[in-house]
């Protein structure tokens, strides 16, 4: 009878035994991994290993910091290069006409009643370039290296075109440069102004401290242009006919002998 009754007490005992065991396992694990319980030899080995590691890490720090400084150096260099490239690009934009510009200069206004043909405009522009103009626009058409000034006609009259667009009156030419120089360039005795005066055209000149010139309408893309550098000829390649008559063995070279001799 006693035999069949052992489940309950044994189970209770086993539950408590399990709790005891796992608690003891945990405690013992914690205790064994505690530094104060380690053997001296192990501790020495651990200290050595850790100090080795520390040295390696310190070396790594030195290495990485030198890398960092070199990277910073590179970055600064790249920044300088970028700055110079941006400067150059801005200059090119100015020359190209892809940037609106500002500066002191001269305004020439031509009214409708003045008898003017497109060649007069070309002469004026040429004169302005010659007088040191840095940027020119006609009625807000920027004049670049690709600008055209021409004339066209419909059924009733002839009109002037700039960049293939009909020019409306009043024609206003803006030129950035030294205003005095520009004005003098136009008003030279026998110059373009005197020439126009012969035809009863008297354009008004006005010196302005702050002029604004717009950018060109559409930037031009170059497909075929390539930079060309002439080859440098070194002195050694210049050979006299005398030396070429003989090959390396000092024999007469029949190919190089003048047939006339």
């Amino acid at each position, binding site marked *: 009878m006693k035999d069949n009754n052992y*489940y309950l007490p044994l189970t209770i005992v086993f539950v408590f035994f*399990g709790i005891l065991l796992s608690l003891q396992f945990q*405690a013992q694990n914690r*205790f064994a991994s505690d530094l104060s319980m380690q053997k001296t030899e192990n501790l020495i080995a651990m200290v050595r290993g850790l100090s080795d590691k520390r040295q390696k890490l310190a070396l790594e720090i030195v290495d990485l910091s030198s890398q960092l400084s070199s990277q910073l150096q590179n970055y600064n260099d790249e920044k300088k290069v970028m700055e110079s490239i941006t400067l150059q690009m801005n200059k090119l934009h100015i020359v190209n006409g892809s940037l609106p510009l500002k500066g002191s200069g001269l305004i020439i206004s031509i009214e409708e009643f003045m008898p003017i043909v497109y060649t007069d405009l070309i002469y004026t522009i040429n004169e302005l370039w010659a007088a040191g103009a840095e940027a020119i626009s006609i009625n807000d058409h920027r004049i670049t290296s690709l600008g055209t000034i021409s004339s066209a006609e419909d059924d009733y009259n002839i009109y002037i075109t700039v960049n293939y667009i009909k020019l409306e009156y009043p024609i206003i030419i803006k030129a950035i440069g030294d205003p005095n120089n520009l004005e003098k360039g136009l008003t030279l005795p026998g110059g373009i102004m005197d020439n126009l005066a012969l035809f009863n055209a008297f354009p008004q000149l006005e010196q302005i401290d702050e002029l604004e010139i717009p950018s060109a309408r559409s930037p031009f893309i170059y497909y075929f242009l390539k930079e060309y550098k002439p080859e440098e000829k070194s002195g050694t390649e210049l050979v006299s006919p005398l030396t070429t008559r003989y090959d390396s063995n000092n024999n007469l070279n029949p190919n190089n002998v003048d047939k006339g001799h």
Partner: protein
Amino acid sequence: MRLVLPIMGLILGAYIGSTLTFQLPAVYIKYMSIAVLASLDSVFGGIKAIMEKNFDGATLLTGFFTNALVAALLAYLGDRLGVDLYYAAVFAFGVRLFQNLAIIRHHILTSFKNIKIFSGDDHERQ
């Protein structure tokens, strides 16, 4: 097959013990270990009693708890008094544990042999 319930109890106890956040202070680990040894001895004693068919639940329960407590207390007292009763307890419980183990093994072996003989007889009868 009959040991399924106690083994489930053991697993449940281990699970409860692992989920407990209670941490035993390092000073008491020594006493806890001797308590575990004592309870282990009680458990084997109980199994031995089942094998010998003179099992008593009250004896096992009281023996389990009192053995564990008294062993831990004695070890603690020994430390206080400067006598290493810890080793005495380890020795006493260790010896009893192995004796119990030996008896259990003996019983298992004999029952196993009996089963074999009976099955052999059955085989001959058929």
